[in-house]
């Protein structure tokens, strides 16, 4: 069969364009089309969430184990309630785990650091829909400075 040179070039051009798009979406965007796999929901109540945003990561020892899904304010006691989407492939965490809002670097983005508690016989794990009780709020720079100034004037 005779191959038309023009058609061959155009076909190569289209293939090249599609390949570029594929590389962009797979390699650069780091997106897996399957998503992050199955997940379950946890809740956490904080006093102050600082600069936390939806899609901020939840990390255990630096490994991303989930993402912040949404942030709401409880209308009863005006405390922020953070909904976490936890990846099921990392399993469930013990009930005694604590969550704190940390900052990556000095000025980086904020994320939730999860500290898994001890796994023991009589300690249950955080099932889907459970609330993390032990939480530490974000550090707000102004409050910190205020405390330092207060402790300096005390002396």
């Amino acid at each position, binding site marked *: 069969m005779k191959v038309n040179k023009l058609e061959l070039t155009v076909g190569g*051009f289209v293939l090249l*364009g599609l390949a*570029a*798009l594929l590389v*962009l*979406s797979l390699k*650069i965007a*780091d997106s897996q089309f399957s998503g992050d796999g199955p997940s379950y929901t946890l809740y956490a109540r904080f006093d102050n969430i600082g600069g936390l945003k939806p899609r901020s990561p939840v990390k255990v020892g630096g490994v991303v184990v989930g993402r912040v899904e949404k942030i709401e304010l409880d209308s009863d006691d005006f405390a922020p309630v953070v909904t976490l989407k936890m990846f099921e492939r990392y399993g469930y965490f013990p009930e005694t785990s604590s969550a704190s809002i940390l900052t990556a670097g000095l000025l980086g983005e904020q994320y939730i650091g999860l500290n898994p508690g001890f796994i023991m016989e009589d300690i249950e794990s955080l099932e889907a829909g459970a609330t993390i009780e032990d939480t530490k709020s974000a550090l707000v720079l102004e409050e910190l400075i205020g405390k330092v100034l207060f402790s300096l004037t005390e002396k």
Partner: protein
Amino acid sequence: MIQAISQLGASCLANIAALGRASMMLAQALWFIPTRKLLRDIVRQLYVVGVLSLPIILVSGLFIGMVIAFQGYSILVDFGAETSLGPMVALSLLRELGPVVTALLFAGRAGSALTAEIGLMKTTEQLSSMEMMAVDPLRRVIAPRFWAGVIAMPLLASMFNLVGIWGGFLVGVEWLGVDDGSFWSIMGASIEFGQDIGNGLIKSVVFALAVTWVALFNGYDARPSARGISQATTRSVVYASLLVLGLDFILTALMFGS
């Protein structure tokens, strides 16, 4: 005074009439069932507007990516945030520069050629003779060029983005010494498929429609003279570029505004 006002009105009416003619041209050119012949013509035009535009797109993509990496580095290093160079290069290319610069280059490289070609066809009465042979010039001449432009531009923009990111990588990592791993991993973490790549693709499709339409209409509507063709070519590039920049603002406000 009154004459000035009436001239303003006349030019307004002329512009609206031109818009009407352009819409009618497009509707007539595209409103038919595609045939095998159309496909073959599209392939030929894809070679002209797509493959032949590749060198300029790839070279400018490389340089633009390198320049962003340079500029970004000199700003980010002041904050000790030079590891964010990756997302900065990738985001500015994917969201803005990729689609927009590709469209501007496309208007200059392929759009002007389309206008001149069709304008000359009209001037030498090739279009009229096609009509006399019962061949619809809108279907045989306009339609394949239009589709070829619309198909080619998103592909060109994707290649532009990829080459640009590679250029940013060359300058940032190989030359300025940003950490290799954090360049790619932070870039990967901060780019989303739908938000960044998808919206960039939508942009380049919209720009492709606008640029090709403007180029084809200006050629089709050119006054049949040497002067007319030169005016039409200039107008095609100027209008297409302005339209791209204006549409870019509107699309950006819609996509990333809220």
